[in-house]
């Protein structure tokens, strides 16, 4: 089975749609949304509606820190720009959308695969997995052979093997990496809606469970449209500008 794993959509409807179409065209039969459906972008309602429909059809969706903030209204720990976007988002959501977000779980585990928005050692603390050290902390907190997380907006693949050394790798777009069963793996997805690795194309991953392979995908989308909506909504212009740069 092919599972499309998407994280950090951040209310970017154009990027979200492009990734879903891309994944379906490549045979994805299941979808996993790893949190942060909202925040930063200007289409939170439409993105949540799509997510609700996917979940109704069997998809997995998890809570991210921006989703949590949009529900609670507390933007503690966020920078000004993110906090501003959250308060804007909060005003737009319907009750149904808000309760959908509020009900999302922090983690999900199935068949030796753990899904989580950020560091698995304390999922509600929203710590970044950004290097070998933080990857080890997350890997040591679980027995799952594969962990998938987002939150960092930059793709990376870590693994821990027989010699207890953490291997770090930057995935190459479209090249499937076999996740050898003798090792434990931590795959950090790039962001669908706000990539920060210098590549503005939307990013998600396709997991082929039969082959035990995961491939990061980059999908071009209508950045101009997404950026125009951010500006029209009166959100900070830099949130629109950064989409073009992938920073």
């Amino acid at each position, binding site marked *: 089975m092919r599972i499309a794993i998407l994280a950090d959509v951040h209310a970017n409807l154009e990027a979200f749609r492009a990734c879903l179409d891309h994944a379906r065209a490549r045979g994805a039969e299941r979808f996993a949304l790893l949190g942060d459906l909202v925040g930063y972008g200007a289409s939170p309602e439409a993105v949540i509606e799509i997510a609700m429909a996917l979940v109704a059809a069997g998809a997995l969706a998890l809570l991210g820190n921006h989703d949590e903030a949009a529900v609670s209204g507390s933007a503690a720990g966020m920078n000004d720009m993110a906090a501003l976007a959250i308060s804007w988002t909060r005003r737009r959501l319907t009750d149904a959308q808000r309760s959908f977000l509020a009900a999302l779980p922090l983690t999900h585990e199935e068949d030796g695969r753990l899904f989580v928005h950020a560091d698995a050692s304390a999922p509600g603390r929203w710590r970044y997995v950004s290097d070998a050290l933080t990857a080890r902390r997350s890997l040591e907190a679980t027995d799952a052979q594969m962990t998938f997380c987002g939150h960092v907006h930059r793709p990376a693949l870590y693994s821990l093997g027989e*010699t207890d050394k953490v291997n770090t790798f930057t995935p190459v777009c479209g090249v499937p990496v*076999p996740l050898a069963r*003798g090792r434990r793996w931590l795959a950090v997805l790039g962001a669908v809606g706000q990539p920060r690795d210098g590549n503005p194309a939307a990013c998600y991953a396709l997991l082929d469970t039969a082959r035990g392979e995961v491939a990061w995908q980059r999908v071009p989308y209508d950045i101009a449209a997404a950026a125009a909506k951010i500006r029209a909504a009166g959100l900070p212009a830099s949130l629109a500008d950064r989409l073009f740069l992938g920073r």
Partner: protein
Amino acid sequence: MPLRGRTIDGFEVGEVLHEGGMALLYRVSRPDDDTPLLMKVPRLRAGEDAASIVSFEMEQMIMPRLAGPHVPRFVAMAGFETEPYIVMERIEGAALSLRLREVPLPPDQVATIGAAIADALDDLHQQHVVHLDVKPANILFRPDGTAVMVDYGLAHHDQLPDLMAEEFRLPYGSTPYMAPEQVLGIRHDPRSDLFALGALMYQLATGETPFGEPQHLKGVKRRLWRDPVPPRRRQDAIPPWLQEVILRCLEVSPDRRHPTAAQLALDLRHPAQIALTARAERRRRDDILTVLRRRLRPEPLVPRRLDTAGRIAAAPILAVAIDLSQTTDELAALLRSQVQKMLASRPRARLACLHVLRGAAAAGAGDEAAQNRHVQCLLELRHWAAPLNLAQGRATFHVLEGADAAEAILDYARANRVDHLVLGARENSLSRRLLGSVSGQVAAEAPCSVTVVRRRRAGEGDHGPAGSD
């Protein structure tokens, strides 16, 4: 538990073919399959170095990705969750290590073997893999002479996690061939394999390894500053061109080696066209002061990070086919300007200039007239290339012989791993109709990109004069 006699995942396990330091090789077979097969099983004894497990995982990641005649065909594998193994095609030919009994070999044999190995390395590099353990035991030959590289336990794949990067230690037994940058832990440069091949050719040509067989890291590091005894000092019979090639491979800085395995193979197949430098005539090692200076102020060895395929793209082999009898001056100039443009952006590209002697001229090869015609063609090719002002050794000149020009050009491109062919279209539509289109056939069947150069004719397309760009 001995595996012999058992059936694992449908494979009947036969006798042990080889006991290596890291793994055992068994003969295996399966019903209704005549392919000769072997099963590689890692040694997993108590206290065994855990790095050998990582090495086996690496090989399991890489082998299923590889294809082609220079790699044993991958058949099946199982991971460490059960009984780990890889089943692959068993190569029937002998390992190069058997030839070591006969060293020193004659120079032409060294070149033939070296070119075959360079072909295999080029193929691996094109598939994103640096082998990093090129040594006689890891090179087998198929009955037709095709070299096959085995053992990918230390290899690096530039699109997959490099599990061995954190496990660095001296691969025991391979130290005679290891590149200096590899000693320092740099694992992504395909030219490390060219160094190893240079060390191997040195051994084949002289009977000695260039740096001895050091057992400790300190001894292996000496090659960073201590140059080897020039091969011709050890063996008088070694011609200057072979020493040139070997010592270029053994340059400490990867930038001074051949840019690609394909370019190395091209040299080894055309010894007469190798540009000789001071390396070719060297008769003694560098003096102690030079060595000291190198030791105190070593060259920076960290190469620019280019992926393997990008490195090859930066140093392609271009071939231009010039039909000397048919090409007008105007078309010759157009071909030249096309080639010039292609070379300008890639200073490490090589150019092979080809002409095909056809039919009767080729049939009479051997007599004096044919010989003269051949020499005259070479002179004309050089004359054509002269305005390009290429450094010596950057261009080579080849008069091919064959009844069918397109076939001759295609054969050359295949044998020499040409990346891009350039040729002119016949101007005269009558001869094109009578003889068929060489460029058309080449474009259709070439194993690489093809650029066909044609003068823009008045009334066909643009209204401006030809060559007005």
